[in-house]
């Protein structure tokens, strides 16, 4: 998704700060970028393509200035071109604007401004903003009043930063799109460095002190920072301290962030469980959900998080609590009767527009809401009644890996703390504590790379599983699709013969998750025989307890574990398969085409 960066009082390092910041926002996915600096006059450079292209353009024609804004764009209105890249200017070239989100009433505004003689040079919705500011300035408004006037006319979602005329300040406002201010160190003559970004890593190198801007608030960054509400009244903001390192965005010797993040899973699991799962007492302590005891549950989520939601449904249902999972986009559109259900939104970034919107819909109908997220201070965190943090640490790869694992672990903690029996807690807590070591054993010994070597040029890939392994089958297929661009589908093992079996032939490997040696395993082994009889190569992902290996061409081994924990383990093997298939095919693993890390438009 798009990214914003801005800084003031950085002196000669202004340009460098902006471009480095844009690089740190790369992980959000983008297709063009640009910067604007205010020096003797306002100057802009922007290009379609990679940040490297922007750097090249800046080398030819360096910009200088004492403050500025920058942007990475992920196209929504108009194709990725130099013209459509941000910052956008007004007719006079004295107002520069960067924007994330969507301005829904831009067409009407644009027609009106064009009627007044304003000339537009791009296809974007954003470009109306600098022209609105220009018009207000022309009517005699001060830069700040002009900015406020423009913002007041916008409908939709936005985080906006602007440089107006020769006023030595950055103006910013937000509505439904994240924007955070970094409070830097004091520089000469009592001035302070301030940063502005859509996400903390963009400026984390310089400061860990942050202020989260809320919807409807305005910020003015100059020698001091002023945050005001829509009426211009000052707002007291708390300064938060962020503990994440910007350096964590470095790949530290791995070829890809995704591989790094796959290897970080033992650590991520430890962080999720630490101080929560108490084996000595046989309890699970989650202060966040102290008084939560739902009689029924609605999960809302998208993509990988939706698969975690399906897993969560199973956990609640096993505990006798009715639960359903919904795609958040559908839930927001066709909201079912909620009754007294607890509505749980799962979103890694906490900014997923579909999920945030579904949670708002639920709240507006009086439902209690819980966010399961990786991001403190995110919209979902701030807007829900309760938040359960998965504590996975920052994830840069667009395809989720460790955060899915963290979501599964957190959901286990949630049901253990709220609806499961003491007996179950005593049985399950030790198994959760075993997970980091078991995941490490897979990372140490996995043969996924060899299997990827054998099958990477297959026509299609299918994944089947039952019970807790069904969401894993869906996630395994999604991961492979996302990063390898190959066709992959996940099915509940039982559904295979009701249609999908027609797709199966000797060029469609079937990955079958079979753990334990119970009725569920025996049924899945039966499904393996069905595909084996159609000449499909079979890869069994198994703990070796059943006889699944007899019918498999290859085996991905996992340690023995109870069924709900085994799902975490089989998924790690499938992550590695997806990674190595994509690597074999030379794909852009950390930034797959057409995808963004955090989808902040509906």
């Amino acid at each position, binding site marked *: 998704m798009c990214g914003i960066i801005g800084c003031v009082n950085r002196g000669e390092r202004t340009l460098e700060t902006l471009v480095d910041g844009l690089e740190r926002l790369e992980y959000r996915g983008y297709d063009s970028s640009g910067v604007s600096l205010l020096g003797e006059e306002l100057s802009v450079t922007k290009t379609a393509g990679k940040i490297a292209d922007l750097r090249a353009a800046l080398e030819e024609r360096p910009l200088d200035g004492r403050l500025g804004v920058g942007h990475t764009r992920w196209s929504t209105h108009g194709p990725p071109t130099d013209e459509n890249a941000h910052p956008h200017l007004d007719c006079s070239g004295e107002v520069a604007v960067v924007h994330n989100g969507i301005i829904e009433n831009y067409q009407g505004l644009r027609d009106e401004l064009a009627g007044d003689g304003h000339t537009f040079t791009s296809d974007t919705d954003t470009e109306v903003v600098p022209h609105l500011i220009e018009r207000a300035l022309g009517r005699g408004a001060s830069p700040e009043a002009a900015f406020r006037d423009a913002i007041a006319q916008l409908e939709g979602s936005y985080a906006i930063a602007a440089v107006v005329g020769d006023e030595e300040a950055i103006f910013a406002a937000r509505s439904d799109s994240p924007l955070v201010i970094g409070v830097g160190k004091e520089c000469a003559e009592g001035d302070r460095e301030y940063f502005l970004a859509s996400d903390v890593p963009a400026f984390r190198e310089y400061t860990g002190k942050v202020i989260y801007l809320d919807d409807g608030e305005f910020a003015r960054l100059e020698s001091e920072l002023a945050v005001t509400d829509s009426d211009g009244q000052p707002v007291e903001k708390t300064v938060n301290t962020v503990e994440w*390192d910007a350096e964590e965005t470095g790949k530290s010797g791995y070829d890809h962030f995704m591989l790094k993040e796959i290897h970080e899973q033992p650590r991520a699991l430890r962080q999720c469980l630490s101080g929560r799962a108490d084996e000595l007492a046989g309890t699970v302590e989650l202060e966040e959900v102290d008084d939560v005891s739902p009689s029924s549950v609605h999960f809302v989520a998208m993509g990988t998080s939706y698969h975690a939601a399906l897993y969560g449904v199973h956990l609640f249902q096993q505990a006798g609590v009715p639960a359903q999972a919904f795609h958040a986009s559908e839930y927001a559109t066709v909201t079912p009767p909620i009754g007294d259900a607890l509505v749980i939104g799962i979103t890694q970034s906490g900014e997923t527009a579909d999920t945030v919107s579904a949670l708002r819909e639920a709240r507006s109908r009086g439902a209690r809401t819980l966010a399961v997220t990786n991001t403190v201070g995110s919209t979902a965190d701030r807007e829900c009644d309760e938040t359960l943090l998965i504590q996975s640490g920052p994830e840069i790869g667009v395809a989720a890996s460790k955060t899915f694992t963290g979501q599964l672990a957190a959901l286990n903690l949630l049901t253990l703390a709220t609806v499961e029996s003491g007996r179950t807690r005593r049985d399950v807590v030790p198994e959760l504590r075993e997970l980091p070591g078991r995941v490490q054993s897979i990372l140490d010994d996995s043969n996924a790379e060899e299997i990827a070597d054998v099958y990477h040029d297959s026509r299609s890939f299918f994944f089947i599983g039952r019970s807790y392994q069904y969401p894993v089958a869906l996630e395994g297929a999604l991961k492979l699709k996302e990063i390898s661009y190959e066709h992959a589908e996940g099915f509940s093992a039982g559904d295979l013969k009701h249609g999908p079996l027609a797709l199966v032939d000797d060029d469609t490997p079937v990955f079958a998750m079979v753990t334990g040696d119970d009725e569920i395993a025996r049924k899945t082994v039966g499904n393996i025989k069905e595909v084996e009889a159609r000449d499909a190569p079979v890869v069994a992902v198994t703990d070796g307890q059943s006889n699944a290996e007899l019918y498999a061409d290859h085996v991905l081994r996992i340690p023995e574990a109870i069924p709900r924990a085994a799902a975490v383990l089989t998924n790690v093997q499938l992550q590695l398969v997806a990674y190595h298939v994509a690597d074999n095919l030379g794909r852009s693993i950390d930034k797959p085409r057409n995808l963004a890390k955090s989808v902040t438009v509906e």
Partner: protein
Amino acid sequence: MNVRTAVVLAAGEGTRLRPLTENRPKPMLSAGNRPILEHVLDALVDAGIERVVLVVGYRRTRVQEHFGPDYRDVPIEYVIQDKQLGSGHALLEARDATTGPLVVVNGDRVIDSGSVEEVIERFESGEDEPVMAVIEREDAHRYGGVRLAGGEITRLVEKPDPGAFRLINAGIYAFGDAIFDEIAATSRESGELALTDTIGRLMEEGRVAGVKIEGVWVDATYPWDLLEVTSEVLATGRVSEPPREDGVWVAESAAVHADATLRPPVAIGADCVVGPGSVIGPEVAVGESTTIGANVTLEGSVVDPDSRLDHGSTIVDAVFGQDVHLKADATIPGGPADVRVDQEVFEDQRLGAVLADRVGVGGGVTFQPGSLVGSGARIGDGAVVRGHVASGAEVVR
């Protein structure tokens, strides 16, 4: 010119420490709940090094995952040595990652910052000549024997006869960037390029300075040496867990039952559980997320992360890899023992047993002193284990 950069050689496995190195290189073995390499980086950072280049190879993801992109705010750059063709080759791989003079250290021995500082000072006071730290050791025959005369290294002999040398090459060097050309100009011995071959050549030209160091210098050659290494680390307080009382370090997230006893020196890692009636220590380090049941006696031992020691076991002088599982009532009575490694017998070593990563042990198993169990081996209920058990093997009563 000031030395700001350090190259740390951490690419080799350390084969004499097998089976403990089957899943991680020697620098990542534990010394007081922290990898040996972490102690090395502490020494470098404390000595004022501002940039670390880590040469990694064998099982390198373990190093990368542990340290990530920086350590104590000092940035780390990883350089990959795909084939382990000697220490000279390893250093040469780091050529493009460095500028100016550099400190070079082996990543698999616990050293202190004073030694690094002395080497740096000597280098900075000279004319770009190479500097090597030397230290006195009784077991000089295991290392490179060195003669030091008038501040210059005059002899360097790899694995000399026992008793022939008293000083050894401590594996801490400072070089000007000319060292890379010197290494490149050194001929390979059976495909390998040892850093000491290059230094030997420079020495013959009378150009290698020596600094005798007297600080902490602890090495593990064989698995049981890790017990000594841990004792040394605990004795010098190089532990990251906060002290609870004198010689007792317990992570805040660890849960120790009120009826358990911790006997100093002892370190209990993050998220550990210690059950009622257990007696842990002295000379014990328990790695993170380890679960110890009720009435376990654990003494003079190293336990790596994620292990699980069930009720009633007695464990003395043991080295456990990661994720070792012991069912109730295991007995490891402890050394001394004669231990056989390949064709060599080491007499009277303090060793109860070595259990490598992910060994699974049934109930009531007894280990005779000096047992070595390979990673992933399964030991059935009631078995008596002696000598070697191969990795992945299954032992039934």
